């Protein structure tokens, strides 16, 4: 059984291993990338910190609670970016003809795209999220229990899944947007930004976009409300904090649909 799984994954491992080796071989360049990645994370955390330097409570949350939200969401995003970050640069693959080469290989197109690269430098950014998470867990008013721990773990994993789905969704849509690919930044990087905000401050339209269509509110904010025992903002029900896995499933269904739609367009199927 394990052997079969190993055989199934062998082609992907081969490509990824070579990319990892290639990245590590450029030592100085890699160190630089790590440093800048870390810096980006710090600046984004600083943005949140500065706001709370000016007010003590924002959207019903204090800084420690928001640090918890930021930690969970940003770490999940960093990991998703590590594994899937290259996917929203689909036009590069199309223009280089690399996508056509994927058609010639006996693996699914999406799997090949995902396995074609990995950005190890995002690990440094993870550290920022981890630090914020650590601080939040200590300083916030956490209602500790086995359920809380389970919720935190499930949220983090769901967050990784949600953000990964955003990258895939972007890839699918970019088949239509070859020259306007940056449009997907609106929900990929906008989604990351939104995930670190207390959704209570959002007007209705944003709640729909980032609470339901691209459900990043489930990657940190809504679950943390349960952890620190705060009420959910309208229209999210109180149990929404536990629904992160559902949000992840929805996000992936949406993403796969976008991918399939994009591929069909690329192949000229359906007129």
């Amino acid at each position, binding site marked *: 059984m394990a052997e079969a799984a190993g055989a199934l994954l062998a082609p992907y491992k081969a490509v990824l291993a070579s990319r990892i080796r290639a990245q590590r071989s450029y030592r100085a360049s890699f160190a630089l990338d790590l440093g800048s990645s870390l810096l980006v994370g710090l600046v984004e955390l600083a943005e949140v910190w500065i706001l709370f330097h000016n007010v003590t409570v924002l959207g019903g949350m204090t800084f420690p609670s928001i640090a918890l939200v930021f930690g969970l969401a940003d770490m999940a995003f960093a990991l998703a970016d590590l594994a899937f970050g290259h996917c929203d640069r689909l036009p590069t693959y199309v223009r280089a003809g690399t996508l056509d080469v994927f058609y010639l*290989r006996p693996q*699914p197109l999406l799997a090949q795209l995902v396995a074609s690269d990995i950005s190890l430098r995002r690990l440094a950014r993870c550290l920022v999220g981890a630090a914020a998470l650590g601080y939040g867990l200590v300083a916030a008013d956490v209602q500790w229990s086995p359920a809380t721990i389970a919720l935190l773990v499930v949220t983090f994993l769901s967050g990784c899944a949600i953000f990964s789905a955003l990258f895939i969704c972007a890839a699918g849509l970019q088949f239509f947007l070859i020259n306007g690919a940056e449009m997907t930044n609106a929900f990929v990087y906008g989604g990351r930004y939104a995930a670190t905000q207390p959704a209570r401050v959002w007007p209705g339209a944003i709640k729909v976009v980032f609470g339901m269509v691209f459900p990043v509110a489930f990657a940190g904010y809504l679950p943390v409300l349960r952890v620190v025992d705060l009420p959910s903002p309208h229209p999210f029900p109180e149990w929404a904090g536990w629904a992160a896995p559902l949000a992840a499933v929805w996000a992936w269904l949406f993403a796969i649909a976008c991918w399939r739609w994009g591929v069909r367009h690329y192949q000229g199927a359906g007129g």
Partner: protein
Amino acid sequence: MTIIETEGLTRQFVRRSKGLRRSRSLLTAVDDVTLRIEPGESVGYIGANGAGKSTTIKMLTGILVPTSGRVRTCGLDPVRQRRVLASRVGVVFGQRSQLWWDLPVRESFEILAAIHRLPARAGTTRQDELVEQLEMGGFLETPVRQLSLGQRMRAEVAAALLHSPELVILDEPTIGLDVLSKQRLREFLLAERARHGTTLLLTTHDMGDIERLCERVLVIDHGRLAYDGSLAGLSRTVGAQRVLVVDLAESLPDLVDVPDTRHLGSEGNGLRQRLAFDAEQTTAARVLAAVSKRAEVRDLSVEEPDIEDVVRRIYSTHR
């Protein structure tokens, strides 16, 4: 089992014009193409740029879906059964690379072996065979981006053949290569076909490729199949002529009376003269001999009929 079978294969593109006035026009890249290629054949697929060659290949490999008509490659539907087909077809794209740019050639082959799930021992034997025959031993450890064009093409061909496919499609494989590299590549392809019975489908602009590699020629013009038959038949149908260009030691009036030739023109007041002759009727050597009897020849060159010329003639014959 027929290797390639198409029936009424058509592919249309919608072209939206840019600018203020948006209009849609329908471009038919491939128009009602019907053909059958049997295993072991060696087929040349020629046509002017934009005639529909790449589009056909994309439909054969499942990259594009036909607008109408039917296509089967190795008995499989290229779109629905793409992944199964991928193990049985090898493609060499002249412009696109299948190799990993910054990795040594050997590593690309190892990854490809893993991708095609080649059993360990069979994979290396096949790789060794290809490396030896394509003489790649000298640059196996070189990153692909540092290879010369000739070396890269050899590596691409090896990459396409690593999984021993039944059908190999080569899209402009000799473009930009020097004469020696072209010759070696052609010899390799012929030998490969002889050894393994591989079917070859070759698109090219180089008549030399066609003459040395293909028994059968398909000519596509504006999306339509204008000719499907042997190479000899093609020359006969088209009456394509070679041209002998001679530079004479001294000016002479037009050489219009050389047997089996047609005088095309003179330059430099009769110093350079162009004579067309039919390859079926006579040879360049004989024409040269005849000219040498009339004048002293300083220099000469022979022009082959180019693809565009052949295609143009076919199109006009077909009308």
